[in-house]
C-alpha cells in the first residue's frame, strides 16, 4: 500500500484507516492481519539512512525496551504478591506467637512442625481443619454450580431484546454493585429468628413451618443461610460474564440451527454452550477461587464465630491465627490452602485445555 509513495510518511493510524477503506474480498476464515504485517515490515527499515552507532543504540533500545516496559509491573507484582506470599511461607516455618511477634528473628524455627501439627488428621487441630475443609468444598461446589446455572439462565433469558430488558439487567446486577458489608449485615437481620423477614414470610405468612420457628444463623440451617447469601452475591457476576460471552455468538449460527430444525434445548446445547466454552472455563475457575476463599460473607453474617456447620476455612484460619495469637499455625494452614488451590487450578487448566485441543 505504502510502496508507491516512498516520500510520504505513513502513520500507523493512516495505514490502518487506509486498509479499512480498501474493499478486500477474502474468505471469512482467513486471518485478516497476517498479510498486513508481512507487507509493512520490510518497508519500515530502510526508510532512513543511519550510522552504525545509532543503529546499535536503537537495537539495544529495542532489545531492552520490552523488559523496561514490564519492569514496573514486575516490581509491583513482586512487592504485592510474591513478597507477602514468601513472608507467609517463612512465618509458617516459625513458632510465631505473641512472644516473638515484636522481633521475628527470635521466633524458634520449627521447620514443618506447624504443618505436621495442623495437618495431622488424628489430632484435634487436624480434625477441626479437615471438617472445615469438607464444609468449604461442599459450600463452594454448591455455590458455584447454582450461581453459574442462575447466571446462564438469566443471560439466555435476557439475550433477545424486549421491553424492560435494560431495567431487568440492572436489577439483576445490583447485588454485585452493593457493598459487601451492608448487604450481608442486611441478610443477617433477615435471618434473625424472632424478628427476621425470612421467618416472618415462611412461618407467619405462608405457614410452611410447623411448630417452632427455625434458626438460620445457628445450627444446621446456618449452612444453607450462608449458601443463599453466597449465591445471591455471586450469580450476578456469572450473569455479567455470560452475557458478554453471548454477544460474540453470531446470530447466523442460531438462524442456521433454527433452519435445521433445532429446538430451544438443542440450540442451547449445540450453539450456546459450545460458544461459551472459553468464557465458562475462566468463569468457573474464578468463581471457585473466590468462593473458596470468601471471608467477608461468613465473617459478617456470623460475627466472627461461625457455627460448626458453616465453619468455612477462611474463618477457621482467622480464628486459629488472629484471635489466638498463633501466626505460625495460621500461616501453615494458609500455605497448605494455597498449595491446594494451586493444585486444583493446575489440574483444572490441564484437563480443560487438553479437551479443547482434542476437540
Amino acid at each position, binding site marked *: 500500500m505504502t510502496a508507491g509513495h516512498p516520500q510520504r510518511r505513513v502513520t500507523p493510524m493512516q495505514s490502518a484507516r487506509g486498509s479499512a477503506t480498501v474493499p478486500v474480498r477474502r474468505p471469512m476464515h482467513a486471518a485478516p492481519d497476517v498479510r498486513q504485517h508481512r507487507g509493512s515490515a520490510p518497508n519500515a527499515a530502510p526508510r532512513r539512512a543511519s550510522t552504525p552507532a545509532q543503529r546499535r543504540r536503537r537495537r539495544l533500545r529495542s532489545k531492552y525496551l520490552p523488559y523496561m516496559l514490564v519492569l514496573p509491573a514486575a516490581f509491583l507484582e513482586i512487592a504485592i504478591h510474591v513478597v507477602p506470599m514468601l513472608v507467609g511461607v517463612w512465618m509458617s516455618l516459625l513458632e510465631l*506467637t*505473641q512472644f516473638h511477634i515484636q522481633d521475628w528473628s527470635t521466633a524458634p524455627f520449627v521447620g514443618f512442625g506447624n504443618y505436621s501439627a495442623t495437618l495431622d488428621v488424628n489430632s484435634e487441630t487436624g480434625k*477441626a481443619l479437615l471438617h472445615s475443609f469438607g464444609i468449604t468444598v461442599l459450600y463452594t461446589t454448591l455455590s458455584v454450580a447454582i450461581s453459574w446455572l442462575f447466571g446462564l439462565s438469566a443471560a439466555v433469558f435476557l439475550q433477545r431484546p424486549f421491553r424492560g430488558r435494560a431495567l431487568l439487567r440492572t436489577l439483576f446486577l445490583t447485588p454485585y454493585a452493593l457493598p459487601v458489608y451492608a448487604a450481608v449485615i442486611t441478610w443477617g437481620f433477615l435471618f434473625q429468628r424472632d424478628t427476621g423477614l425470612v421467618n416472618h414470610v415462611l412461618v407467619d405468612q405462608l405457614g410452611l413451618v410447623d411448630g417452632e420457628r427455625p*434458626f438460620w*444463623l*445457628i445450627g444446621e440451617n446456618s449452612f444453607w443461610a450462608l449458601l443463599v447469601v453466597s449465591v445471591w452475591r455471586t450469580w450476578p457476576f456469572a450473569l455479567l460474564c455470560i452475557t458478554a460471552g453471548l454477544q460474540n455468538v453470531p446470530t447466523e449460527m442460531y438462524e442456521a440451527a433454527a433452519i435445521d430444525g433445532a429446538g430451544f434445548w438443542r440450540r442451547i446445547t449445540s450453539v450456546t454452550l459450545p460458544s461459551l466454552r472459553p468464557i465458562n472455563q475462566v468463569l468457573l475457575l474464578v468463581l471457585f477461587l473466590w468462593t473458596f476463599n470468601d471471608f467477608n460473607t461468613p465473617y459478617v453474617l456470623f460475627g466472627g464465630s461461625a457455627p460448626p456447620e458453616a465453619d468455612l476455612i477462611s474463618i477457621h484460619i482467622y480464628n486459629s491465627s488472629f*484471635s*489466638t*495469637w498463633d501466626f505460625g499455625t495460621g500461616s501453615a494452614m494458609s500455605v497448605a490452602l494455597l498449595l491446594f488451590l494451586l493444585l486444583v487450578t493446575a489440574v483444572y487448566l490441564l484437563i480443560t485445555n487438553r479437551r479443547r485441543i482434542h476437540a
Partner: protein
Amino acid sequence: MAAALLTGSLAACGNPVADAKTLTYWASNQGSSLEFDKQTLAPVLERFEQQTGIHVKVEVVPWSDLLNRLLAAATSGRGPDVVNIGNTWSASLQATNALISFDAAAFDRIGGRDRFVPAALASAGAPGKAPAAVPLYSLSYALYYNKQMFADAGISKPPATWEELVEVGKRLTNGKQWGLAIEGANLSENAHHAFTFSQQYGGEWFDLSGKPTFDTDQNVKAIKRYIDLMAVDKIVNPSNAEYAKNESLSDFANRKAAMLLWQAAGSAFQAQGMRPEEYGIAHVPFPANPPAGGRKVNSMVAGINIAVFRHSRNLEGAMEFVKFMTSDDEQVALNKVYGSLPSVKGALTNPAFQAPEQKILAEVLASTASPLPQVTTESQFETLVGAVMKEQFANAANNKPITEAAIRAKLKAVEQRMKA
C-alpha cells in the same frame, strides 16, 4: 493472613514521628459511638495540653480493630505512644514485650502503686510480674432486674442464689416475656460466665503453670449449669442462642426479659429508653449449697487498661499522660460519663459513684470479683470455650439434649487444640 499483617504494619509506618511536644493515643470505644468518645476526650486532652504543653493526637479505635492494630504496632515498632487495651489481653500483650513494664520506678513516676484498686491492678499482667499496663476504667458483672415485672409476679426481692433465680425466672416467664436474657452466641460473654460459674463450682481453666485444664468435672458442671438455664429451666428465650450483638441488652430494655447479667449496663439502658428507676440491681447469684472447693466469686474483673509502647519517642510525656489519666479528677470525669468505675481509690469515694448501680459494682469489685486467668493463652480460652458454649446453646435451642458427656468431649477436644 500474612498479607493482612504486612499491610497493617506498613500502614502503621505512616504515623508521624512523635517528639517531646506531641503524643499519639489510641483510645478504645467506651461510649455509644466513636464520635461520642472523641467529644468526651477532647476537653480532657485540652486540660492535659494546658498543664504540660503536650498535644495529644487521639484516635478512637473500634473494638473490632483494636487488637489487630495493636499487634501491627507491636510488630512494626511504629505507631502510638499510649494505648487502651482490654484488660484480658494484658498477659498476652505483656508477652510481646512491646509495652513498658510498670515496675516500682514506673509506678513512682505516676504517683504510686497504692493509689490503684487492688482487684483492678491484678488484671494488668501475669501474676508475679511487673504489670504491663495500669487500670483505667473498671467494670464488674451485676444482676439487673425489671422492678415492675418483679412486682407483677409478686416477687419482693432479687434472687441471691441460682436456685432462687430459676424459681423466680419460671414465675416471670409467660407468653409475653422471659425470665432471663442471655447473649448465647457471643464468645467473650460466654467465656466470662464460664469463668464465674467454674469458680463457684471450684474449678479452674488453667493450672498454676498456665496449662489448660478444661475438661474437669467442675468445669463441665459449671457450663452445664449455665446452659441449663435455657435447656432445662426454660427461663431463657431459645432465640437468645443466636444473640451476639447485644440483643439481650435490648430485650431487657424493651421489657422482653425480666433479668440480665451484664457489666455496667445503665447508660446502655438509658440510650434504649429505660429509666434508672425502672430497674433494680443486685449481686450475681451464688449456688445455694456451694460445691466442695467452690469460691465466693461472682464476677470477673472487667475493665480497660492503659499502656505505654516501648517504642515511644516521648516516653517522658507518655508517662506524664498515664499519670494524668489516672489522676483522681480525670478518673471522676471520665468514668462518670462512661458509667464505669474509677480504678483509683481516691476517685471511688466521689459522690458521682454512689448511685445504686455504681455502689453495687464497686462492692463486687472490692469483694467477690476475680481476674480472668492472666495467662498468655487467655484469648484462645475465650475463643474456644466460648464457641463450645455457643454450640451447646444452639443445641438447647433446637431441643437437643445437653449432657455432661457431650460437654466434656467438646472441652477435651478444644483443650487439645490449645498450644502449650
